[in-house]
């Protein structure tokens, strides 16, 4: 239909076209990346520190300049003109080029770090060597591929965070939330762990805002030993890690919904909301996608629970006189916790469960209980039916690398910016489960004001068909909602509001379309 030239975003007509300065800004940003790339081909930069600064500054200033050109001259308000005309944001050529490049980067990063210049037992070369000066400054150690990744990741969140704030400068919720993710990424994910390594070399690298099961490796043997070996501070961190899972996160999710984490704190969410903002409209909204989502993400939860249980089990002893936590007590503990949650849900929230979710829950619960049972009755050396090491390795490979990195971020321009969070993140699934059943958070639909325009659904990065609820006058209470607030922002009629309110009246399945006469509303809602 559209007669706009959609082939290349850099040319053509407004609003898809870039201004001359925007083109220069793109070139500046890419030149920063080009320096990194040159380092990758072992161009030996003298004075690496200065070249690193030049490179990162070029990336940062490029994004900043682009943003200024895009928004500074415009009045504040929604800035989605031409989103579906631009090649980069509508799965055009530029989107595919970017997607393939990012994917390539992730494959090298996870599986071939030697191409980035990682040298075991020697000094680094290539890209990693370029980042050595910064790493030495922070932790005193040479850089690793993860330090390179962390640095670029932080620069991306900061630069595109500024872009996001500028774009949504009429919306204080979006501004404050973005400042929050920028802060948590820079301080908690990037700087604090490096400084901790400098202060106490024995401490395991710990991004304190990462909570199990997102950091699925947190309770592995080497980390537990390291925590214990580093004295009080180590123990404090271990206890904090456990409290995060069982106390802090359920408490905050009860009050604020899972957004306190997913769109205010989390690093994956941080990148998705900032660098990934241009791709939020690409998420799949079909009902079929929602079905796939529920099966996949809950399978990951089962997988990570099994895997972690197996790993912890494998290094515990059998002798109660040595340490109170033995293989058996641990397994019984896991079974008790799962049963507790299951019973809680069945007793209090059965009606709120949709049918297939109920089947899923019962199914998974049965499997886990059966596996625990197997162990007791078979009594061989493995946990459950698997070798714990195999489980851990396959989880790390399939979920930790392929899903969260290669597909999750590499495919931003094709599948949207929250593919990992929606289909793969076990943390999001657990928080979502709680958000659906035990939380004050909801998106309130404003009476009968919806005009079914579809902006909310289109710009929902989690692929929620927001409109399907709003046009019926129903509140939106969905486990996957990360509370980014964009549906509310793009709504032209003021229909949606994210809020934390009383549990009563939170989920309202009625067609309450105000403006109608009361008798008709009663009739319409007769079941």
């Amino acid at each position, binding site marked *: *239909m559209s007669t706009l030239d959609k082939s290349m975003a850099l040319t053509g007509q407004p609003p*898809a076209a870039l201004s001359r300065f925007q083109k220069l800004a793109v070139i500046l940003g890419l030149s920063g990346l080009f320096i990194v790339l040159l380092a990758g081909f072992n161009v030996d930069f003298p004075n690496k520190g200065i070249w690193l600064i030049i490179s990162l500054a070029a990336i940062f200033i490029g994004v900043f300049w682009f943003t200024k050109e895009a928004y500074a001259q415009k009045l504040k308000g*929604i800035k*989605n003109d031409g989103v579906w005309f631009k090649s980069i944001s509508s799965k055009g050529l530029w989107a595919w080029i970017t997607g393939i490049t990012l994917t390539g980067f992730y494959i090298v990063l996870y599986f071939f770090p030697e191409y980035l210049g990682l040298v075991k037992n020697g000094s680094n070369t290539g890209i990693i060597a370029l980042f050595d000066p910064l790493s030495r400054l922070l932790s005193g150690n040479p850089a690793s591929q993860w330090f390179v990744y962390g640095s670029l990741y932080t620069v991306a969140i900061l630069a595109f965070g500024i872009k996001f704030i500028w774009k949504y400068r009429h919306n204080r919720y979006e501004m404050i939330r973005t400042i929050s993710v920028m802060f948590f990424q820079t301080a908690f994910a990037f700087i604090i762990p490096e400084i901790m390594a400098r202060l106490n070399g024995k401490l395991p690298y710990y991004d304190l805002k990462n909570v199990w099961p997102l950091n699925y490796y947190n309770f592995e043997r080497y980390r537990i030993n390291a925590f214990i070996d580093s004295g009080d501070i180590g123990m404090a961190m271990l206890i904090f890690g456990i409290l995060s899972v069982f106390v802090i996160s359920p408490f905050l999710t009860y009050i604020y919904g899972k957004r306190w984490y997913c769109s205010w704190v989390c690093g994956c969410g941080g990148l998705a909301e900032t660098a990934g903002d241009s791709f939020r409209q690409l998420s799949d909204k079909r009902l079929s996608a929602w079905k796939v989502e529920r099966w996949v993400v809950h399978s990951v939860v089962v997988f990570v629970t099994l895997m972690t249980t197996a790993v912890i089990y494998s290094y515990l002893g059998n002798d109660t006189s040595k340490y109170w936590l033995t293989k058996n007590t641990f397994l019984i503990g896991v079974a008790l916790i799962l049963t507790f949650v299951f019973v809680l849900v069945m007793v209090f929230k059965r009606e709120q469960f949709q049918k297939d979710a109920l089947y899923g829950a019962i199914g998974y619960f049965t499997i886990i209980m059966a596996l625990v049972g197997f162990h007791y009755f078979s009594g061989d050396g493995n946990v459950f039916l698997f070798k714990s090491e195999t489980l851990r390795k396959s989880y790390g490979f399939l979920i930790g690398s392929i899903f969260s990195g290669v597909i999750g971020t590499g495919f931003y321009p094709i599948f949207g910016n929250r593919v990992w969070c929606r289909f793969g993140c076990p943390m999001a699934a657990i928080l979502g489960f709680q958000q659906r059943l035990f939380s004050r958070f909801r998106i*309130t639909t404003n009476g009968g004001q919806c005009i*079914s*325009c579809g902006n909310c659904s*289109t710009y929902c990065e989690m692929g929620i068909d927001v409109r399907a609820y709003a046009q019926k006058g129903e509140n939106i209470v969905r486990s996957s909602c990360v509370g980014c607030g964009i549906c509310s922002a793009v709504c032209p009629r003021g229909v949606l509001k994210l809020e934390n309110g009383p549990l009563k009246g939170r989920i309202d399945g009625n067609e309450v379309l105000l403006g109608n006469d009361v008798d008709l509303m009663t*009739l319409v809602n007769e079941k």
Partner: protein
Amino acid sequence: MENIVIIGNGVAGVTAARHIRKNSNKRIIIISAETDHFFSRTALMYVYMGHMKFDHIKPYEDWFWEKNRIELLRGYVSKVDHQKKELQIEDARILKYDKLILATGSKPNKFGWPGQDLHGVQGLYSKQDLDLLEINAPNREVCKRAVIVGGGLIGIELAEMLRSRDIPVTFLVRENSFWDIVLPDGESKMLNEHILEHHIDLRLETNLTEILADESGRVKAVITDKGETIECQMVGLTPGVSPNVSFLNDSGIELGRGIKVNRFLETNIKDIYAIGDCAEQNEPIGNRRPIEAVWYTGRMMGETVAQTICGNRTKYKPGHWFNSAKFLDIEYQTYGWVFSTNGRKEYEEHFHWRNSTEKICLTIAFHKETRKFLGINTFGIRLRHEIFDKWLNEGRDVMHVIKYLKDANFDPEFYAAYENEIADKFNLEYGSDIKPEKKNWKRIFAIG
């Protein structure tokens, strides 16, 4: 099985179909000449602006219709024969019905301007109009300037659309301030400023006299009643809409401007109903106009007629008036009745407040003597529909509204709040001493 035929797949017709399906097993056929599937008409603008693709503005996935056994038929009904209970579909077959629902919507007004049918002159209502706009004004090279005639909601939407592609726009408005036949002066003036901020060449109190053609029959300029000639490649005619009923002229169905219906949405012919934009009420309902071309009223009529069709004859009783719109970057909501400054009822008093820096304002209408709250308009502040519905039901006075306004705020979290500022101004003007109460969930949820 009874055969229900609905002409028109807009919100009125589709809502009727959905609710008939909910309550019955009747056969349902929806006929449309416009599109295969229902879409949100109010969202057409976002397709041109690139916010969404056409698929995004369809509220239901394409499998929805078959799953719910709602048959969709693409065609133009040229004749209704109520004696034989048949429809003639142009260049196609005859279709029998047992009950017929007319939900044919509107068509853009044209007032007989010379040149109004030239190439490059168009309205903005249908999917076809959107496709035509892509031909008439795809970019600023093909369309170096556009002129829009008619200062209403569609006019300003069209201006926003064209500006999104950087096309210069001249906006001819008959009134001496934008939409001041509906809005109080303070609000209308603020919108004038906002229109200019968007670099739209707003010409108030200016009418179209003639549209000029070039040698190929395309528009090349317009002449205004001020005698000015404005060169342009596209003319948007947006002086309102009227019911799309001309195909019923000799059908025996009683027509006024629209299809005449009683409070049960029944026409003068048995088993034929009319809903949505095309329906004209025989007897007035409160302050409402006999024809209301509004999304929400179409939806309510659809729900109502579905009850009647399914054996539960139900009167159309719309509740308190509400509406909303967005003018470029400024959102507008209204609950109850606030009339324009000139159109005010003799008992109606207005309290107006505008923020000194932001483009945010509100007007509260109340009864001069009793102080009873009548209605509210807000620009740049979102309000909770339920709360105002409740206050109107309870017959609250304006002091109550000022005092509990925080309960009604629906802006996103962390937004600047203006209730105290508003109360200060009200206290100053009316010598009162109202202290706004904090937001309270218990009050908000104490509904029904």
